[in-house]
Protein backbone atom coordinates (compact mmCIF):
# COMPACT_ATOMS: atom_id res chain seq x y z
CA UNK A 1 0.00 0.00 0.00
CA UNK A 2 2.75 2.41 0.83
CA UNK A 3 4.40 3.80 -2.24
CA UNK A 4 8.15 3.52 -2.50
CA UNK A 5 10.07 6.34 -4.00
CA UNK A 6 12.20 5.04 -6.82
CA UNK A 7 15.19 7.14 -5.77
CA UNK A 8 15.18 5.50 -2.39
CA UNK A 9 16.28 2.22 -3.83
CA UNK A 10 19.10 3.63 -5.89
CA UNK A 11 20.55 5.41 -2.89
CA UNK A 12 23.40 6.97 -4.85
CA UNK A 13 20.86 9.75 -5.04
CA UNK A 14 21.26 13.42 -4.69
CA UNK A 15 20.67 14.65 -1.17
CA UNK A 16 21.06 11.37 0.58
CA UNK A 17 24.10 10.29 2.50
CA UNK A 18 22.30 7.41 4.14
CA UNK A 19 24.17 4.14 4.54
CA UNK A 20 23.00 1.37 2.30
CA UNK A 21 20.37 -0.59 4.16
CA UNK A 22 18.74 2.63 5.36
CA UNK A 23 16.03 4.01 3.09
CA UNK A 24 13.18 6.43 3.19
CA UNK A 25 9.82 4.75 3.03
CA UNK A 26 6.24 5.89 3.24
CA UNK A 27 4.46 5.10 6.50
CA UNK A 28 0.88 6.34 6.73
CA UNK A 29 1.58 8.97 4.16
CA UNK A 30 4.78 10.35 5.68
CA UNK A 31 8.20 9.54 4.47
CA UNK A 32 10.42 8.15 7.19
CA UNK A 33 13.76 6.46 7.63
CA UNK A 34 13.56 2.69 7.70
CA UNK A 35 15.73 -0.39 7.97
CA UNK A 36 15.04 -4.02 7.22
CA UNK A 37 14.55 -6.36 10.17
CA UNK A 38 12.19 -7.73 12.76
CA UNK A 39 10.20 -5.04 14.56
CA UNK A 40 11.46 -4.34 18.07
CA UNK A 41 9.39 -1.67 19.78
CA UNK A 42 6.07 -1.62 17.98
CA UNK A 43 7.27 0.65 15.17
CA UNK A 44 5.21 0.73 11.97
CA UNK A 45 6.33 -1.58 9.20
CA UNK A 46 6.08 -1.65 5.45
CA UNK A 47 6.74 -5.17 4.30
CA UNK A 48 10.12 -6.05 5.72
CA UNK A 49 11.00 -2.40 6.31
CA UNK A 50 10.41 -0.87 9.71
CA UNK A 51 10.34 2.81 10.52
CA UNK A 52 13.30 4.31 12.36
CA UNK A 53 11.94 6.98 14.65
CA UNK A 54 14.36 9.92 15.02
CA UNK A 55 12.46 10.97 18.15
CA UNK A 56 13.45 7.74 19.84
CA UNK A 57 16.92 7.39 18.42
CA UNK A 58 19.70 9.94 18.50
CA UNK A 59 21.53 8.25 15.64
CA UNK A 60 18.24 8.28 13.74
CA UNK A 61 18.02 12.01 14.39
CA UNK A 62 21.59 12.51 13.15
CA UNK A 63 20.74 10.67 9.94
CA UNK A 64 17.44 12.52 9.58
CA UNK A 65 19.23 15.85 9.94
CA UNK A 66 21.59 14.85 7.16
CA UNK A 67 24.79 14.75 9.19
CA UNK A 68 27.75 13.14 7.43
CA UNK A 69 27.96 10.03 9.58
CA UNK A 70 30.42 8.27 7.31
CA UNK A 71 28.25 5.16 7.55
CA UNK A 72 28.04 3.13 4.39
CA UNK A 73 26.43 -0.06 5.63
CA UNK A 74 28.07 -3.35 6.49
CA UNK A 75 30.62 -1.93 8.93
CA UNK A 76 31.70 -3.52 12.19
CA UNK A 77 30.18 -1.47 15.00
CA UNK A 78 30.58 -1.01 18.72
CA UNK A 79 27.50 0.50 20.30
CA UNK A 80 27.89 1.95 23.79
CA UNK A 81 24.73 2.51 25.79
CA UNK A 82 22.51 0.16 23.83
CA UNK A 83 19.66 0.39 26.39
CA UNK A 84 16.60 -1.54 25.22
CA UNK A 85 18.06 -1.95 21.77
CA UNK A 86 15.89 0.58 19.96
CA UNK A 87 18.72 2.16 17.99
CA UNK A 88 21.15 -0.71 18.01
CA UNK A 89 18.57 -2.94 16.36
CA UNK A 90 18.48 -0.53 13.41
CA UNK A 91 22.28 -0.41 13.36
CA UNK A 92 22.45 -4.20 13.27
CA UNK A 93 19.97 -4.13 10.39
CA UNK A 94 22.31 -2.18 8.11
CA UNK A 95 25.77 -2.75 9.66
CA UNK A 96 27.89 -5.87 9.94
CA UNK A 97 28.92 -7.42 13.26
CA UNK A 98 27.56 -5.16 16.00
CA UNK A 99 28.65 -5.25 19.63
CA UNK A 100 26.08 -3.77 21.99
CA UNK A 101 27.22 -2.73 25.46
CA UNK A 102 24.65 -1.87 28.10
CA UNK A 103 25.07 -1.55 31.84
CA UNK A 104 21.56 -1.81 33.30
CA UNK A 105 19.97 -5.26 33.57
CA UNK A 106 16.36 -4.27 32.99
CA UNK A 107 16.75 -2.68 29.53
CA UNK A 108 19.23 -5.39 28.61
CA UNK A 109 16.35 -7.84 28.86
CA UNK A 110 14.68 -6.02 25.97
CA UNK A 111 17.98 -5.76 24.15
CA UNK A 112 18.18 -9.55 24.27
CA UNK A 113 14.87 -9.94 22.50
CA UNK A 114 16.00 -7.50 19.81
CA UNK A 115 19.21 -9.52 19.40
CA UNK A 116 17.35 -12.81 19.16
CA UNK A 117 16.54 -12.40 15.48
CA UNK A 118 19.80 -10.62 14.63
CA UNK A 119 22.64 -13.14 14.44
CA UNK A 120 25.33 -10.44 14.11
CA UNK A 121 24.22 -8.45 17.14
CA UNK A 122 26.20 -9.34 20.25
CA UNK A 123 24.69 -8.11 23.52
CA UNK A 124 27.03 -7.51 26.47
CA UNK A 125 26.05 -6.55 30.00
CA UNK A 126 29.02 -4.35 30.83
CA UNK A 127 30.04 -0.88 31.91
CA UNK A 128 31.15 1.30 29.00
CA UNK A 129 33.46 3.15 31.37
CA UNK A 130 35.44 -0.07 31.83
CA UNK A 131 36.48 -1.28 28.37
CA UNK A 132 38.94 -3.73 29.91
CA UNK A 133 35.94 -5.82 30.95
CA UNK A 134 34.97 -6.47 27.33
CA UNK A 135 38.18 -6.07 25.32
CA UNK A 136 38.50 -9.88 25.37
CA UNK A 137 35.21 -10.09 23.46
CA UNK A 138 34.93 -6.97 21.30
CA UNK A 139 37.30 -7.09 18.35
CA UNK A 140 39.90 -4.47 17.52
CA UNK A 141 39.62 -1.96 14.66
CA UNK A 142 35.86 -1.58 14.50
CA UNK A 143 34.72 0.83 11.78
CA UNK A 144 32.39 2.83 13.95
CA UNK A 145 31.72 3.51 17.60
CA UNK A 146 28.25 4.78 18.34
CA UNK A 147 27.85 6.19 21.80
CA UNK A 148 24.73 7.21 23.66
CA UNK A 149 25.38 6.86 27.36
CA UNK A 150 23.52 8.91 29.93
CA UNK A 151 26.35 9.32 32.38
CA UNK A 152 28.66 12.03 33.54
CA UNK A 153 31.98 11.96 31.69
CA UNK A 154 30.71 11.16 28.21
CA UNK A 155 33.92 12.40 26.56
CA UNK A 156 35.89 10.17 28.88
CA UNK A 157 33.86 7.12 27.79
CA UNK A 158 34.60 7.94 24.15
CA UNK A 159 38.31 8.33 24.89
CA UNK A 160 38.48 5.11 26.89
CA UNK A 161 36.89 3.20 24.03
CA UNK A 162 39.16 4.76 21.41
CA UNK A 163 41.23 1.57 21.63
CA UNK A 164 38.56 -0.36 19.72
CA UNK A 165 38.32 2.05 16.81
CA UNK A 166 40.21 1.63 13.54
CA UNK A 167 42.43 4.58 12.62
CA UNK A 168 40.13 5.45 9.74
CA UNK A 169 36.98 4.73 11.76
CA UNK A 170 34.31 7.11 13.03
CA UNK A 171 32.91 8.03 16.37
CA UNK A 172 29.22 8.96 16.35
CA UNK A 173 28.43 10.50 19.66
CA UNK A 174 25.21 11.81 21.12
CA UNK A 175 26.04 14.09 24.04
CA UNK A 176 23.33 14.56 26.59
CA UNK A 177 23.93 17.90 28.30
CA UNK A 178 21.78 17.13 31.29
CA UNK A 179 23.80 14.03 32.10
CA UNK A 180 26.93 16.08 32.55
CA UNK A 181 25.45 18.86 34.58
CA UNK A 182 21.77 19.73 34.86
CA UNK A 183 22.39 23.21 36.09
CA UNK A 184 24.82 24.57 33.52
CA UNK A 185 23.97 25.88 30.12
CA UNK A 186 23.92 23.07 27.53
CA UNK A 187 26.18 25.07 25.23
CA UNK A 188 28.83 25.32 27.91
CA UNK A 189 28.58 21.58 28.52
CA UNK A 190 28.88 20.84 24.81
CA UNK A 191 31.94 23.06 24.49
CA UNK A 192 33.56 21.26 27.39
CA UNK A 193 32.81 17.81 26.01
CA UNK A 194 34.17 18.84 22.61
CA UNK A 195 37.34 20.18 24.19
CA UNK A 196 37.83 16.97 26.17
CA UNK A 197 37.24 14.88 23.06
CA UNK A 198 40.12 16.65 21.31
CA UNK A 199 42.54 14.53 23.37
CA UNK A 200 41.82 11.56 21.15
CA UNK A 201 39.55 12.67 18.35
CA UNK A 202 39.14 15.26 15.64
CA UNK A 203 35.58 16.53 15.52
CA UNK A 204 34.35 16.55 11.91
CA UNK A 205 30.81 17.72 12.41
CA UNK A 206 28.47 18.54 15.22
CA UNK A 207 24.88 19.60 15.36
CA UNK A 208 22.20 20.18 17.97
CA UNK A 209 19.54 17.48 17.86
CA UNK A 210 16.93 19.68 19.52
CA UNK A 211 14.34 19.05 16.81
CA UNK A 212 14.15 15.52 18.14
CA UNK A 213 16.01 15.43 21.45
CA UNK A 214 16.18 18.43 23.76
CA UNK A 215 19.65 19.44 24.94
CA UNK A 216 21.50 16.86 22.89
CA UNK A 217 24.43 17.38 20.58
CA UNK A 218 25.32 14.98 17.77
CA UNK A 219 29.05 14.70 17.07
CA UNK A 220 30.88 12.96 14.25
CA UNK A 221 34.58 12.51 14.92
CA UNK A 222 37.56 10.52 13.74
CA UNK A 223 40.45 9.30 15.86
CA UNK A 224 43.43 11.60 16.12
Amino acid at each position, binding site marked *: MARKRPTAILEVGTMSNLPSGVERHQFDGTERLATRGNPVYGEPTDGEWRAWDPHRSKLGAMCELGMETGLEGGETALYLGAASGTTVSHVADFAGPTYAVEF*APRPTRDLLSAAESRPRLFPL*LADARKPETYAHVVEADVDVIIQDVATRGQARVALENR*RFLADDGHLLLAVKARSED*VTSDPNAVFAEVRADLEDGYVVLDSRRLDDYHADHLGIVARPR
Partner: protein
Amino acid sequence: MTDDSATDAGWYGGLEPGDLEAAADAIESGTREQPADWPTLAVEADFASSPEEYYDRLHEATMATTRQAVREREGADDRQLVHTVRAMDDCERTANELAERLAEWAGSVDPEAGTGIEYARTIAAREDSQNPRLESLATRIRSLAEEADELREYIERQTPTIAPNLAGLAGPVLAARLISLAGGLESLAKKPSGTVQVLGAEDALFAHLRGHAPSPKHGIIYTHDAVRGTHPADRGSAARALAGKLSIAARIDHYSGELNPELEADLAERIETIQARHGTKTADGDTRGGDDE
Protein backbone atom coordinates in the same frame (compact mmCIF):
# COMPACT_ATOMS: atom_id res chain seq x y z
CA MET B 1 45.56 -24.63 22.14
CA THR B 2 43.98 -24.91 25.54
CA ASP B 3 46.89 -23.31 27.33
CA ASP B 4 45.69 -19.75 26.79
CA SER B 5 44.21 -18.53 30.01
CA ALA B 6 41.09 -16.45 29.58
CA THR B 7 42.80 -13.40 31.00
CA ASP B 8 45.40 -12.83 28.34
CA ALA B 9 43.60 -14.28 25.32
CA GLY B 10 40.19 -13.79 23.81
CA TRP B 11 37.09 -15.03 25.56
CA TYR B 12 37.16 -18.25 23.52
CA GLY B 13 40.66 -19.22 24.75
CA GLY B 14 40.63 -22.81 25.97
CA LEU B 15 36.91 -23.26 25.35
CA GLU B 16 35.13 -26.06 23.60
CA PRO B 17 32.74 -24.58 21.07
CA GLY B 18 29.23 -25.06 22.42
CA ASP B 19 30.24 -25.11 26.09
CA LEU B 20 28.06 -22.15 26.92
CA GLU B 21 28.59 -22.36 30.64
CA ALA B 22 32.34 -22.02 30.35
CA ALA B 23 31.85 -19.32 27.72
CA ALA B 24 29.60 -17.37 30.07
CA ASP B 25 32.22 -17.57 32.74
CA ALA B 26 34.97 -16.40 30.39
CA ILE B 27 32.92 -13.52 28.98
CA GLU B 28 31.71 -12.36 32.36
CA SER B 29 34.88 -12.53 34.36
CA GLY B 30 37.57 -12.05 31.71
CA THR B 31 39.48 -8.80 31.43
CA ARG B 32 42.03 -7.51 28.99
CA GLU B 33 43.56 -4.12 28.33
CA GLN B 34 43.59 -4.15 24.55
CA PRO B 35 41.25 -5.74 22.05
CA ALA B 36 42.59 -7.84 19.18
CA ASP B 37 41.36 -9.22 15.91
CA TRP B 38 39.41 -11.99 17.61
CA PRO B 39 37.62 -13.38 14.55
CA THR B 40 40.92 -14.02 12.76
CA LEU B 41 42.71 -15.26 15.87
CA ALA B 42 39.85 -17.59 16.76
CA VAL B 43 40.03 -19.19 13.33
CA GLU B 44 43.81 -19.55 13.69
CA ALA B 45 43.26 -21.17 17.09
CA ASP B 46 40.79 -23.63 15.52
CA PHE B 47 37.95 -22.32 17.63
CA ALA B 48 35.98 -21.78 14.44
CA SER B 49 36.55 -22.69 10.82
CA SER B 50 35.71 -19.25 9.48
CA PRO B 51 34.94 -15.75 10.79
CA GLU B 52 31.29 -16.41 9.96
CA GLU B 53 31.27 -19.46 12.18
CA TYR B 54 33.10 -17.48 14.86
CA TYR B 55 30.40 -14.82 14.79
CA ASP B 56 27.71 -17.51 15.05
CA ARG B 57 29.42 -18.86 18.14
CA LEU B 58 29.95 -15.39 19.54
CA HIS B 59 26.26 -14.62 19.11
CA GLU B 60 25.26 -17.85 20.81
CA ALA B 61 27.73 -17.23 23.65
CA THR B 62 26.92 -13.56 24.26
CA MET B 63 23.18 -14.26 24.18
CA ALA B 64 23.51 -17.05 26.75
CA THR B 65 25.92 -15.08 28.93
CA THR B 66 23.95 -11.89 28.95
CA ARG B 67 20.65 -13.68 29.50
CA GLN B 68 22.14 -15.43 32.51
CA ALA B 69 23.74 -12.25 33.85
CA VAL B 70 20.48 -10.35 33.52
CA ARG B 71 18.57 -13.11 35.24
CA GLU B 72 21.04 -13.15 38.11
CA ARG B 73 21.09 -9.41 38.54
CA GLU B 74 17.36 -9.16 38.33
CA GLY B 75 16.76 -12.27 40.40
CA ALA B 76 18.17 -10.18 43.19
CA ASP B 77 14.68 -8.85 43.02
CA ASP B 78 12.50 -6.60 45.08
CA ARG B 79 10.76 -9.50 46.84
CA GLN B 80 14.07 -10.63 48.29
CA LEU B 81 14.72 -7.08 49.38
CA VAL B 82 11.38 -6.83 51.17
CA HIS B 83 12.16 -9.95 53.18
CA THR B 84 15.67 -8.74 53.93
CA VAL B 85 14.64 -5.35 55.23
CA ARG B 86 11.93 -6.87 57.42
CA ALA B 87 14.36 -9.47 58.76
CA MET B 88 16.87 -6.73 59.50
CA ASP B 89 14.30 -4.75 61.48
CA ASP B 90 13.22 -7.86 63.38
CA CYS B 91 16.82 -8.70 64.26
CA GLU B 92 17.51 -5.16 65.44
CA ARG B 93 14.35 -4.91 67.48
CA THR B 94 14.86 -8.33 69.07
CA ALA B 95 18.50 -7.65 69.84
CA ASN B 96 17.55 -4.39 71.54
CA GLU B 97 14.79 -6.00 73.53
CA LEU B 98 17.05 -8.79 74.72
CA ALA B 99 19.81 -6.32 75.49
CA GLU B 100 17.40 -4.51 77.79
CA ARG B 101 16.55 -7.76 79.52
CA LEU B 102 20.23 -8.59 79.85
CA ALA B 103 21.01 -5.18 81.35
CA GLU B 104 18.27 -5.63 83.90
CA TRP B 105 19.45 -9.09 84.81
CA ALA B 106 23.10 -8.12 84.94
CA GLY B 107 22.24 -5.08 87.07
CA SER B 108 20.98 -7.41 89.79
CA VAL B 109 24.38 -9.08 90.05
CA ASP B 110 26.70 -6.26 89.18
CA PRO B 111 25.83 -2.70 90.15
CA GLU B 112 28.29 -1.46 87.52
CA ALA B 113 26.39 -3.15 84.67
CA GLY B 114 26.01 -1.15 81.46
CA THR B 115 23.19 -1.14 78.93
CA GLY B 116 22.46 -1.79 75.30
CA ILE B 117 24.00 -3.96 72.61
CA GLU B 118 27.47 -2.68 73.38
CA TYR B 119 27.19 -3.97 76.92
CA ALA B 120 26.00 -7.35 75.61
CA ARG B 121 29.09 -7.48 73.42
CA THR B 122 31.30 -6.82 76.44
CA ILE B 123 29.68 -9.58 78.46
CA ALA B 124 29.85 -11.99 75.52
CA ALA B 125 33.54 -11.29 75.09
CA ARG B 126 34.28 -11.83 78.81
CA GLU B 127 37.26 -14.12 79.18
CA ASP B 128 36.66 -15.30 82.73
CA SER B 129 33.22 -16.83 82.97
CA GLN B 130 31.27 -15.43 85.91
CA ASN B 131 27.71 -16.32 85.04
CA PRO B 132 27.33 -18.83 82.19
CA ARG B 133 23.62 -18.14 81.62
CA LEU B 134 24.16 -14.42 81.39
CA GLU B 135 27.09 -14.83 79.02
CA SER B 136 25.19 -17.25 76.82
CA LEU B 137 22.32 -14.78 76.48
CA ALA B 138 24.83 -12.02 75.66
CA THR B 139 26.32 -14.20 72.90
CA ARG B 140 22.89 -14.62 71.29
CA ILE B 141 22.37 -10.86 71.40
CA ARG B 142 25.73 -10.28 69.79
CA SER B 143 24.95 -12.72 66.96
CA LEU B 144 21.57 -11.12 66.39
CA ALA B 145 23.19 -7.71 66.15
CA GLU B 146 25.78 -9.09 63.75
CA GLU B 147 23.05 -10.65 61.65
CA ALA B 148 21.31 -7.29 61.48
CA ASP B 149 24.55 -5.66 60.34
CA GLU B 150 25.05 -8.27 57.65
CA LEU B 151 21.49 -7.88 56.45
CA ARG B 152 22.08 -4.15 56.24
CA GLU B 153 25.21 -4.70 54.16
CA TYR B 154 23.27 -7.00 51.88
CA ILE B 155 20.63 -4.32 51.44
CA GLU B 156 23.26 -1.71 50.69
CA ARG B 157 24.71 -3.95 48.00
CA GLN B 158 21.47 -5.17 46.44
CA THR B 159 19.20 -2.14 46.41
CA PRO B 160 21.24 -0.23 43.81
CA THR B 161 20.93 -3.11 41.33
CA ILE B 162 17.19 -3.48 41.89
CA ALA B 163 16.23 0.17 42.11
CA PRO B 164 19.24 2.27 41.03
CA ASN B 165 17.42 5.61 40.89
CA LEU B 166 15.51 5.15 44.11
CA ALA B 167 18.65 4.01 45.91
CA GLY B 168 20.56 6.98 44.54
CA LEU B 169 17.96 9.42 45.79
CA ALA B 170 16.98 7.87 49.10
CA GLY B 171 20.02 5.80 49.99
CA PRO B 172 19.82 2.02 49.82
CA VAL B 173 18.24 1.39 53.20
CA LEU B 174 15.47 3.97 52.99
CA ALA B 175 14.81 2.84 49.41
CA ALA B 176 14.45 -0.75 50.62
CA ARG B 177 12.12 0.36 53.41
CA LEU B 178 9.90 2.22 50.98
CA ILE B 179 9.74 -0.84 48.73
CA SER B 180 8.96 -2.96 51.76
CA LEU B 181 6.22 -0.63 53.02
CA ALA B 182 4.63 -0.50 49.59
CA GLY B 183 4.90 -4.27 49.24
CA GLY B 184 7.22 -4.29 46.24
CA LEU B 185 8.79 -2.03 43.64
CA GLU B 186 5.85 -2.31 41.29
CA SER B 187 3.32 -1.25 43.90
CA LEU B 188 5.59 1.59 44.96
CA ALA B 189 5.84 2.69 41.33
CA LYS B 190 2.06 2.73 41.09
CA LYS B 191 1.42 4.77 44.20
CA PRO B 192 0.72 8.48 43.92
CA SER B 193 3.46 10.56 45.44
CA GLY B 194 1.11 11.77 48.18
CA THR B 195 0.93 8.18 49.40
CA VAL B 196 4.69 7.76 49.21
CA GLN B 197 4.99 10.92 51.31
CA VAL B 198 3.13 9.32 54.24
CA LEU B 199 4.23 5.68 53.88
CA GLY B 200 5.10 4.53 57.37
CA ALA B 201 2.84 7.11 59.01
CA GLU B 202 -0.30 5.00 58.67
CA ASP B 203 -1.40 5.47 62.29
CA ALA B 204 -1.25 9.22 61.99
CA LEU B 205 -2.91 9.10 58.59
CA PHE B 206 -5.86 7.05 59.77
CA ALA B 207 -6.22 9.16 62.90
CA HIS B 208 -6.42 12.12 60.56
CA LEU B 209 -8.95 10.42 58.33
CA ARG B 210 -11.07 9.59 61.35
CA GLY B 211 -11.10 13.28 61.95
CA HIS B 212 -9.18 13.83 65.15
CA ALA B 213 -5.67 14.64 64.05
CA PRO B 214 -3.87 16.88 61.60
CA SER B 215 -2.68 15.25 58.38
CA PRO B 216 0.80 13.75 58.66
CA LYS B 217 3.47 15.64 56.76
CA HIS B 218 5.78 12.73 56.28
CA GLY B 219 6.22 9.04 56.97
CA ILE B 220 9.44 7.07 56.81
CA ILE B 221 10.95 9.64 54.43
CA TYR B 222 11.42 11.76 57.54
CA THR B 223 14.76 9.96 57.92
CA HIS B 224 15.98 11.56 54.70
CA ASP B 225 18.27 14.56 55.13
CA ALA B 226 16.15 16.58 52.75
CA VAL B 227 13.33 16.47 55.30
CA ARG B 228 15.20 16.23 58.55
CA GLY B 229 17.66 18.93 57.58
CA THR B 230 14.91 21.39 56.75
CA HIS B 231 13.34 23.97 59.04
CA PRO B 232 10.26 22.42 60.69
CA ALA B 233 7.93 24.96 59.09
CA ASP B 234 9.09 23.86 55.64
CA ARG B 235 9.25 20.14 56.23
CA GLY B 236 5.87 19.63 54.60
CA SER B 237 7.16 21.22 51.39
CA ALA B 238 10.41 19.31 51.55
CA ALA B 239 8.59 16.02 52.15
CA ARG B 240 6.25 16.71 49.25
CA ALA B 241 9.14 17.55 46.91
CA LEU B 242 11.13 14.53 48.03
CA ALA B 243 8.15 12.17 47.69
CA GLY B 244 7.55 13.46 44.18
CA LYS B 245 11.10 12.68 43.10
CA LEU B 246 11.08 9.32 44.87
CA SER B 247 7.89 8.33 43.02
CA ILE B 248 9.48 9.26 39.71
CA ALA B 249 12.61 7.30 40.64
CA ALA B 250 10.55 4.23 41.56
CA ARG B 251 8.69 4.44 38.27
CA ILE B 252 11.88 4.71 36.23
CA ASP B 253 13.35 1.79 38.16
CA HIS B 254 10.32 -0.37 37.64
CA TYR B 255 9.53 0.47 34.04
CA SER B 256 12.93 1.13 32.50
CA GLY B 257 15.68 0.43 35.02
CA GLU B 258 18.04 2.94 33.49
CA LEU B 259 19.94 5.23 35.76
CA ASN B 260 18.86 8.83 35.43
CA PRO B 261 21.45 11.06 37.11
CA GLU B 262 19.32 14.17 36.59
CA LEU B 263 16.93 13.20 39.33
CA GLU B 264 19.42 13.68 42.11
CA ALA B 265 20.44 17.10 40.89
CA ASP B 266 16.80 18.09 40.40
CA LEU B 267 16.02 17.12 43.96
CA ALA B 268 19.07 18.87 45.38
CA GLU B 269 18.12 22.04 43.56
CA ARG B 270 14.51 21.89 44.77
CA ILE B 271 15.46 21.22 48.38
CA GLU B 272 17.99 24.01 48.33
CA THR B 273 15.26 26.40 47.26
CA ILE B 274 12.99 25.23 50.04
CA GLN B 275 15.70 25.38 52.66
CA ALA B 276 16.67 28.87 51.56
CA ARG B 277 13.28 30.15 52.76
CA HIS B 278 14.28 29.96 56.39
CA GLY B 279 17.97 29.95 55.72
CA THR B 280 18.16 26.41 57.14
CA LYS B 281 21.16 25.58 55.04
CA THR B 282 23.38 27.58 52.75
CA ALA B 283 23.16 31.33 52.89
CA ASP B 284 24.76 31.65 49.47
CA GLY B 285 21.92 29.55 48.00
CA ASP B 286 20.57 30.22 44.59
CA THR B 287 18.74 33.39 43.89
CA ARG B 288 16.17 32.02 41.53
CA GLY B 289 12.95 32.43 43.47
CA GLY B 290 9.82 30.88 42.11
CA ASP B 291 8.11 28.33 44.24
CA ASP B 292 5.52 25.77 43.53
CA GLU B 293 3.08 26.89 46.11
